[in-house]
């Protein structure tokens, strides 16, 4: 400790004496590698197609960048675009590209790369395809691209900035190198413009990202990052993501000094980390916990009854421990632009009497069991078990259908096989991407009124109008239609050594400006 202080003061004196050498000196005190224990690997790391959180958290903004990206307040900031214009009725978009931005293969980014990338993105992403129809991106010169639609698309910019299938820009050569059999870009062609290169992927072991020296930063070097937007210093030379599927192993490794950062720390391990003052813990809302009703086999009174009955704490605690919020919003609390508590008085009311009254109005035959579908691993079985006991108090028996994930994903598309299924949803940038609100996703929210409101939201002329519509949708879902039994939001906790500073927490954790003291 003493030595460390001496070093610090020495550095301070030297810094005063030779102001211009500060960066060089500062760098020497930091480790050149940050070791991150990641919980899983993505199936491809091709962000246009891979919707997994692992791929997105690791690569978006780090290895590949987008035309626009999300700021902390949910607004949109230009990233690879210098600026952009949108016409009055949100149907024509023009992006002016930054000049002199280089890909990791040394080539300069031009409109050809952007057009090739974004049109592949549209082809791969049905929601956007529905939004834009037959329109595609076009290059008007080397540094300008446009998209002209027949209809208005208020949420297109949000999608470009924050969709789970990220609208990242690859060089045109990578798009041409797509593997015909799998449809994915091969790992050695995962090239972007970000501050780190995707340099090695040892399957089931690690992913290695290395600093890209020709990175062209944007924003103010002295300012903090604003969400995902801002100046990226890339202080640390190498980011190692070790694929460590077991939660205990990640924590053991962190405590033993094998890792500097551990993602997805489970509730059972919190005590161990808190007990050690060399480590920091933090958590953030990362998705919603819910049971999705099969609207073709249940009526709204049954759904309202269960919503009146449910005790969110009892259900959540057995799976998440303390890592959850009883927050009624269908979007996460970090998504400022869309956050609303409309309808929250209906959220899990823990009121058996009201539940019984509602159940009496339902056509549900209580002599038959309610079929609950879930994945029989992880925390779902425990939650379903508690729900079953709660349902018994109002005279509903349950049939528990536990299946492995693959089988369950298939079963839930069969409307005769179940009445309700348990699932969690990760964050989406716009509410229209909440799959349980869609008419053709499992559960089938085919309600005409809901779908009209959804259309009104997606085609609204201004964002304020869309938000007002969104509040009405959420209110309607809680008070009347009940497409899901909303239970709250789960938190993802992460832990790191206190020597790690400068990491940026927004939706996930970024290491662009992170430094690890030696």
């Amino acid at each position, binding site marked *: 400790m003493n030595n460390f202080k001496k070093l610090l003061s020495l550095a301070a004196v030297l810094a005063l004496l030779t102001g211009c050498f500060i960066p060089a000196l500062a760098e020497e005190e930091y480790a050149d590698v940050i070791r991150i224990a990641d919980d899983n690997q993505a199936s491809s790391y091709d962000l246009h197609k*891979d919707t997994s959180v692992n791929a997105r958290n690791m690569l978006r903004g780090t290895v590949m960048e987008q035309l626009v990206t999300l700021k902390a307040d949910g607004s949109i900031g230009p990233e690879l675009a210098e600026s952009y214009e949108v016409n009055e009725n949100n149907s024509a978009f023009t992006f002016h590209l930054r000049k002199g931005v280089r890909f990791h293969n040394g080539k300069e980014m031009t409109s050809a790369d952007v057009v090739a990338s974004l049109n592949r993105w549209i082809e*791969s992403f*049905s929601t956007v395809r529905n939004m834009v129809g037959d329109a595609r991106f076009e290059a008007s010169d080397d540094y300008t691209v446009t998209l002209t639609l027949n209809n208005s698309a208020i949420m297109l910019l949000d999608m470009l900035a924050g969709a789970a299938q990220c609208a990242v820009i690859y060089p045109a050569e990578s798009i041409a190198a797509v593997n015909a059999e799998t449809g994915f870009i091969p790992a050695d062609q995962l090239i972007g413009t970000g501050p780190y290169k995707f340099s090695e992927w040892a*399957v089931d072991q690690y992913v290695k990202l290395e600093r890209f020296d020709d990175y062209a930063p944007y924003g103010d070097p002295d300012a903090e990052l604003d969400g995902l937007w801002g100046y990226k210093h890339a202080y640390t030379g190498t980011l190692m993501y070790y694929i460590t599927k*077991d939660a205990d192993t990640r924590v053991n490794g962190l405590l033993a000094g094998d890792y500097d950062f551990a993602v997805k720390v489970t509730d059972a391990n919190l005590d161990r980390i808190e007990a050690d003052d060399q480590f920091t813990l933090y958590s953030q809302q990362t998705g919603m916990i819910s049971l999705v009703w099969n609207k073709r086999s249940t009526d709204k009174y049954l759904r309202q009854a269960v919503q009146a009955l449910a005790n969110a704490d009892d259900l959540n605690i057995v799976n998440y421990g303390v890592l959850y919020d009883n927050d009624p919003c269908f979007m996460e609390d970090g998504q400022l632009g869309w956050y609303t508590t409309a309808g929250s008085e209906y959220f899990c009311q823990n009121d058996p009497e009201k539940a019984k009254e509602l159940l009496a109005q339902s056509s549900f035959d209580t002599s038959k069991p309610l079929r609950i579908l879930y994945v029989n691993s992880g925390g779902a079985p425990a939650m379903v078990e508690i729900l079953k006991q709660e349902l018994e108090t109002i005279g509903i028996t349950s049939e528990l259908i536990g299946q492995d994930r*693959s089988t369950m994903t298939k079963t839930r598309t069969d409307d005769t096989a179940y009445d309700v299924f348990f699932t969690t949803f990760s964050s989406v940038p716009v509410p229209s991407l909440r799959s349980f609100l869609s008419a053709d996703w499992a559960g089938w929210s085919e309600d005409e009124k809901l779908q009209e409101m959804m259309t009104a939201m997606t085609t609204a002329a201004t964002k304020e109008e869309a938000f007002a519509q969104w509040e009405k949708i959420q209110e309607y879902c809680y008070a009347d239609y009940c497409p899901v039994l909303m239970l709250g939001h789960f938190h993802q906790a992460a832990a790191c050594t206190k020597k790690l500073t400068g990491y940026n927490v927004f939706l996930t954790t970024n290491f662009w400006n992170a430094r690890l003291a030696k």
Partner: protein
Amino acid sequence: MGKYVIKRLAALIPTIFIVSVVVFLIVHLTPGDPAAMMLGEDATPADIAALHNRLGLDDPLIVQYVRWAGKCLTGDLGYSTAVAGQSVSGMIASHFLPTILLAVYSQLITVFLALPLGMIAARKRGSLTDSALSVFSMAGISLPSFMMGMGMVLLFAVSFRLMPATGYKNPFTDGIGPFFRYMTLPAVSLGFIHAAYMMRMTKASLLEVLSSDYIKMARAKGVKERKIVFKHAFRNSLLTVITVIGQGFISALAGAAVVERLFGIPGMGSLMVDSIDKRDYQVIQGITLMIAMLNVLINLLIDVIYGFADPRIRLK
């Protein structure tokens, strides 16, 4: 001898053929859809159907089998669907090392534990040591590897904090020290059940040899008991021991699935369990075929060694 080996090798062909049919059928009868798993939670039915078509999953089973088997014969085990663009052989190769190291390490522990104890039990037959050892070995045989592993984790990692509870270190990149620190608990829990078994077999075969006429002769000649056990008897019971080591290796490969999961080791066993979860057809097929092949080859090897040692066998 060469003829014998060739004959035995030829006999493997139908076995491997049956394994391939069995595993192919099992895999394709499994409900669930690799295309859906590949595209993630939010994929639309249309996207899934398109990928389905591209992967050739809509063809009749027999067509798919012939296509797969034909490729296998040329050494191409296909591509993983869960990890895009990865060849199955590449994936097997990268997961092979942890499993094989674990198996070898556990076999070493087994041999060093079981052989001396077995000999002691045979030499001091009927004594208190012998009874204690047989109770110990019986208990060992009854302990499933994951229970043994969990017990050791509770004891050495949770209570005494002597060793890490879970994790894997590659001896070539992370160093040999960390490797032993991380792999000793898994290796012991994998090898223990077999050590118990091997101890019993060593004892039994030693006793059998010790009661044979030539040992009696040696005793009559006044050869020291110690020399009789270690030089004469042990050498002759080596065959049994080799068989047991071979079997132990096979069962270590199989048992690795459970131990690897418990200790978070990225080996073939955990790859197999993962692949079943993700419906990664080609990988499941590839691994099963590969382990089955290893299995029969090890058995063949044991028989060949036997044949060298005991000409009566190869004449049969």
